[in-house]
């Protein structure tokens, strides 16, 4: 038996590209996509590697490492942080209410409800696919600059996400207790309130807390388009190239996000005990 043949004890490793293997073609397609992306974007590699660009980056980074510590400025940043926190909390709360309202028709089963289920599903998908930033930019037209636009933007986007998750939770809830109440003639809304909702409530709260973690990041970033809070302060100081103040705001953002993550984790831990 020669080495490297099919029957030998030392077969060669498989070929790198085998025309019969589907994933080889997929990998080749991905390589073509990557090369085409770099080629079509025409990135200014020469300019990026140029000394002046690197020196500018280095200067930015150096300034970013020295935050400004003046008392009034820190108080201003703290009040902006509170505004961002309020924006995210209120936005998530509104999203829970709206999401639950939309999840009820979106999760019904039964032929005569197909129309409402499709409508609710489409509405939830539309709310969910539009990023918060886009909602924020559109709502600024209606309500002007300020945190109200940011709150509504977060509420609308998150209600799409939460509505879909709530609808899935409603569909997966065990139906026995609801069935028993229905048999006794209790109305549909009361059946939901007394039988289904208490069963799925821990899961709903867990989803909402997880979305709150995401929303605090989104709230910080929404301010950049004018929705108030830390983002607006960040865009303002960065626009004036005041890198030291910018780094204080960035630090506040990181601390706020870490704080909300920790709080949400603790609450979810307490819930699941």
């Amino acid at each position: 038996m020669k080495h490297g043949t099919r029957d030998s004890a030392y077969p060669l490793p498989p070929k790198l590209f085998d025309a019969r293997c589907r994933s080889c073609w997929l990998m080749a397609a991905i390589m073509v996509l990557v090369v085409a992306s770099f080629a079509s974007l025409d990135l200014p590699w020469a300019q990026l590697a140029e000394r002046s660009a690197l020196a500018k980056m280095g200067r930015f980074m150096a300034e970013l490492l020295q935050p400004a510590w003046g008392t009034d400025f820190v108080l201003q940043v703290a009040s902006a942080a509170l505004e961002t926190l309020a924006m995210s909390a209120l936005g998530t709360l509104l999203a829970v209410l709206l999401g639950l309202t939309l999840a009820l028709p979106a999760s019904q089963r039964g032929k005569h409800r197909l129309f409402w289920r499709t409508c609710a599903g489409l509405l939830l998908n539309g709310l969910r696919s539009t990023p918060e930033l886009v909602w924020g930019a559109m709502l600024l037209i209606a309500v002007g600059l300020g945190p109200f636009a940011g709150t509504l933007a977060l509420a609308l986007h998150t209600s799409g996400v939460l509505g879909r998750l709530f609808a899935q939770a409603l569909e997966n809830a065990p139906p026995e207790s609801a069935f028993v109440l229905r048999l006794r003639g209790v109305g549909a809304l009361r059946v939901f309130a007394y039988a289904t909702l208490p069963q799925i409530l821990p899961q709903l709260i867990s989803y909402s807390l997880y979305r709150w973690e995401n929303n605090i990041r989104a709230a910080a970033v929404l301010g950049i388009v004018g929705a108030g809070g830390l983002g607006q302060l960040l865009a303002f100081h960065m626009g004036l190239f005041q890198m030291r103040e910018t780094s204080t705001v960035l630090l506040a953002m990181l601390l706020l996000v870490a704080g909300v993550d920790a709080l949400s984790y603790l609450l979810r831990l307490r819930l699941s005990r």
Partner: protein
Amino acid sequence: MANNAPNLTSAPGRLNPSLRDPVALHRIFWVLTAVMLLWPALVLTEFKPWLLLEPGALTPAMRFVADFFPPRMDAEFAAFLLRETWRTVAIATAGLSLALLLAVPLALLSVRVLSVSGLSGRMARWPARARQSARWLLLILRSVPELVWALVFVRVVGLGPAAGVLAIALTYGGMLGKVYADILESGDPHVSTCLLRNGCGRMQTFFYGLLPQEAAELTSYTVYRWECAIRSSAVLGFVGAGGLGQQLDTSLKMFNGAEVASILLVFMALVWMADRMSAALRRGLA
């Protein structure tokens, strides 16, 4: 005669005290606490929903929404939108490729399973510190929101797709690196410890021990992140990084509802297609 059954009919419409809600006081307390926490939140966010209905706000908003209904779909604009969509996908793909260049070395640097000194109990001091600093670098890279990176890069390299590519590369490099490290550490360590103990180099251990086990999960996560990167690159356009987002920003500032409607529709179609492609790729590759 002792009457042990609860007396429900002692007074019509009034329950016997033994049937009242025992946690009523508890619930009232928590509701009041929630209202007390809600009030400052409402004040801080300037939550005035009646402002939406004021004529000065309602009329332009209604006019803007009414403009949505014939979305602008002439051939020139459609071709333009297709080009911008390709740019968005290209920014996401290029950014994710650069992110891979950043994530793979950092992930390999930060895993415990490739540690020779860790084979026999506690890792030595300097290798442990090197791994810890790789993890801290990944944490910093993924904690800064990508919009912030994009804002900084727009000021360094100017408006255009380069800022978006670099912003996605840094943020997604951090995210991918951390998850790669988690996936590599969660596999069965038996193979890698055997190879390391028998004298294999770390790269050999990675390629022959860790990668074959975890390749499916790694590819699946990377393809999922590619889909997320497409959504992010559309949003990054808002700060000037090119693609659909920049066009949306321009059309919004000019209050051109028809163009905004077409861009939103194209964006939703893009997200849906990316979702389908990512599901197909994950089935095909993993």
